[in-house]
């Protein structure tokens, strides 16, 4: 992966440092109640939790898709503030993969990949296209590059979405329930790509319900409930010997459906 060899600013500093993040929705709902999280370079952090626990909201604060009212977030040495230039700078370093893919339906697969690098990074189009084709080969859909997203299966679309993010050469990738909208037989092909990414040393924060993925790939698992961080532990300890009562209840529930 090209991004993993690009020189890091300060290798020892954490990639993401979130301190006591609090968020209220405009309707008064207290969505995040002082959440802390530190993600080191090369780590894969999996965030789990029941729906409505604030895990997606928390993830989306990292690239300022959601704002927050108290606390602080620092991504790759840049402090998130209301300064729009800072936000744009962070978004260029942070890739995001959505539950609903959010590919651009009016552009071909290749154009989906090349749009941002050409427009934002001002890189020459031919060079970006070459890189895009290499990325599409890597996620296993090289032959679909001239099709439109609507002509692809869900699993293929999600792999294009991952390649689209990678084309910006981000230093960190956020995944917001990347397999939740997929048919079961397509989940595997997407997780396979994510495994490969983790093996290459990409820093990743993944919101997911995939227990197997969390067990095999995660360096740490975080459980959130009701806008708070309930537990944070290495996967083995988290799945076999959780310390909190709330974690045990959650694990009982998801392990029934996800043995």
């Amino acid at each position: 992966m090209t991004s993993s060899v690009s020189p890091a600013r300060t290798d020892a500093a954490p990639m993401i440092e979130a301190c006591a993040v609090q968020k209220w929705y405009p309707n008064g709902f207290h969505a995040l109640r002082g959440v802390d999280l530190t993600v080191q370079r090369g780590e894969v952090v999996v965030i789990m939790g029941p729906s409505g626990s604030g895990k997606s909201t928390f993830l989306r604060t990292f690239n300022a898709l959601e704002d927050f009212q108290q606390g602080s977030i620092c991504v790759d040495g840049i402090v998130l503030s209301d300064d729009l230039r800072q936000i744009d700078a962070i978004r260029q370093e942070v890739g995001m993969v959505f539950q609903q893919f959010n590919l651009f339906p009016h552009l071909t697969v290749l154009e989906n990949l090349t749009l941002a690098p050409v427009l934002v990074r001002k890189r020459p189009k031919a060079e970006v296209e070459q890189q895009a084709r290499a990325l599409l080969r890597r996620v296993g859909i090289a032959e679909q590059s001239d099709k439109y997203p609507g002509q692809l299966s869900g699993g293929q679309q999600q792999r294009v979405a991952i390649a689209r993010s990678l084309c910006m050469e981000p230093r960190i990738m956020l995944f917001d329930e990347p397999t939740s909208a997929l048919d079961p037989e397509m989940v595997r092909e997407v997780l396979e790509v994510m495994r490969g990414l983790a093996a290459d040393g990409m820093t990743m924060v993944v919101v997911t319900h995939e227990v197997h993925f969390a067990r095999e790939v995660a360096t740490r698992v975080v459980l959130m409930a009701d806008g708070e961080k309930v537990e944070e532990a290495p996967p083995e300890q988290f799945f076999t010997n959780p310390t909190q009562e709330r974690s045990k209840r959650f694990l009982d529930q998801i392990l029934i459906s996800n043995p």
Partner: protein
Amino acid sequence: MTPLLRRLRQDLFATPADGLVTVLLLALIGAGGFAVLHWALGQAQWAVIRANSTLFAVGRYPLDQQWRLWLLTALLAAATGLSWGMLRSHPRPDRGGSLWPRNDWMAVGMVALLSLALPSLLGLALPLQLRWWAIAALLLLLRWLAGRFGPLLPAPLKRCLPLGLPLLYLLGMVLIGGGLALEPVSPSQWGGLMLTLLESSFAILLCFPLGVLLALGRRSDLPLLRWGSVVYIEFFRGAPLITLLFLGQNMLGFLLPGGVAPERVWRAAWVLTLFAAAYLAEAVRSGLAAVPRGQLEAARSLGLSTPQAFTTVVLPQALRVALPSMVGQFISLLQDTTLLSLIGLMELLGTARTVMANPAFLGRNAEVYFTLAVLFWCCCAALGLGSRALERRLNPSTLA
């Protein structure tokens, strides 16, 4: 039974009730068609159109300056042929496009037929007929040339070609109005179909960007911009156009900087533009609402700035959705130009009224109105056909 007969029977006479409906409708269509034909060929006296064809086309434009309009017509025909051929020679990579689809042959046939038949039906002098033939020939020649040799042009030149259209529009304004060493022709002497097309094309071209900005403003987070857009849209949608036209004649002189709208023609054009922009904004807004929120989020999370995200991701999708209703607005805008006759402009309807007021053509109202209807129908049909072609070309989802 032959296949054709079998199909006819299946489609039209499948059950006794179907058969009855078919027979009744055929009788109605036949009777109506016969009545119209009987009137058009037997009773109608088309001399009123023949004698006034120039008046209907360009109004009281000075005779010795009309060569400018011929030149403009020729330029428009050339531009039409050129862009038609270029479009056909660059089919979208994802679908098999032919250089000469069947529809194009029908269009060529219609252009040839109209240019041959119409001038002689109107009883134009032979030199004028020849000019029309030459203009049609120019259009078809450039269609062929652009289709044949267009792909050979160097890429930078091809990219610059669309810039020719706004230039052509400005050149057209100069040719019609004068200036740049041409003798000025006062707008009060413009008229007929030319004025109708001028007013509607001016309004269509300008109301489009204005409408898009208003639609974006209405969805903006900035309260002043949002409320400003809402007030504007609701004001212009809340008043009848004719009221606004009268108001504009009296007020626009104060509101706009001096020199922008000194003439009634231009004041009316601005009112039409501002009026149409409000309706267009609502069409665009419905298009914007159809684009999922995730599209903007995805674009922003890739690092695109908000203006970049709107111009490359959100607006292309929104405008595609809004296209049919936008063209609907353009068509009604074209028809609304008839209201300009009420403020004394000599556009098509205004011209028609002066012709009918001429004692020499007393009682020839039916012929005049019929011609007017056909002219408007042709313009609107052209807009509709163009929009449908554009929709097909823009819409990759028809493939999925």
